[in-house]
């Protein structure tokens, strides 16, 4: 069985935020929530590195482990999803996640957060596939249509890959072999050519 994963190639990511925009537009993500965001180290300096971060759909998801009401479930191919109707907005999953993927749309009195929202790998949620209810709560369900996450499909440099972990790893392995340099080498040749 395939295991769906994301991989962001830091050598190729140019911090265009195309993935962020694509995600936010496609799923009409609430204000204040960034399902996907680009993190840049040494911004503006030679050798800066950017990486696109969203829910990593962990095999042993800490968010699912700490949830007091067990709203998380994992599909056969490793996509971690949750039921917003059951969510109590406690924020435990946000504290547990090392990537800060679960986010909350509200900042109201008495620490009211609203329902947790996170990257769904474009797989929607526990509603009828491609229904209005699913779109309103979880965004577009591209996986049921045989499509891959839009962030990866929109990536201009093919830095962000999303799909079967074996296929993703295969592509990245070929890139590493082609580059032939240390991970710290940077530049056009390192990303696309061979040294």
């Amino acid at each position: 069985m395939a295991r769906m994963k994301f991989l962001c190639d830091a050598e190729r990511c140019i911090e265009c935020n195309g993935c962020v925009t694509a995600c936010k537009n496609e799923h009409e993500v609430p204000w204040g929530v960034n399902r996907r965001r680009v993190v840049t180290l040494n911004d503006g300096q030679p050798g800066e590195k950017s990486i696109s971060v969203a829910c990593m759909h962990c095999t042993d998801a800490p968010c699912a482990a700490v949830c007091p009401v067990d709203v998380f479930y994992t599909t056969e191919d490793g996509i971690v999803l949750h039921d917003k109707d059951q969510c109590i907005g406690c924020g435990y999953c946000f504290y547990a996640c090392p990537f800060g993927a679960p986010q909350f749309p509200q900042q109201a009195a008495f620490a009211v957060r609203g329902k947790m929202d996170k990257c769904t790998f474009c797989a929607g949620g526990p509603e009828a596939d491609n229904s209005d209810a699913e779109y309103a709560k979880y965004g577009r369900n591209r996986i049921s249509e045989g499509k891959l996450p839009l962030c990866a499909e929109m990536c201009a440099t093919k830095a962000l890959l999303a799909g079967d972990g074996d296929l993703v790893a295969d592509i990245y392995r070929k890139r590493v072999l082609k580059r032939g340099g240390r991970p710290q080498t940077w530049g056009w040749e390192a990303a696309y050519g061979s040294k």
Partner: protein
Amino acid sequence: MRILLTVLFLVSGSLVLTACYEDVDVSIHEPGEYKGQKDPLLSELKQQQLQKELDERFKAGQSDR
């Protein structure tokens, strides 16, 4: 007059009390058990056809350049 006011009070009181309805369909949490709705995507993913389509799309669109 008094009777009229009493009747009016009872009727308006009944109308106001209809707002007190509460949906008693609650989920009782049991540790480690997912009690949310069923996701139809789970059964679709068990079929190999959808997985094949996704793999084909990956090879077509995200293979290296």
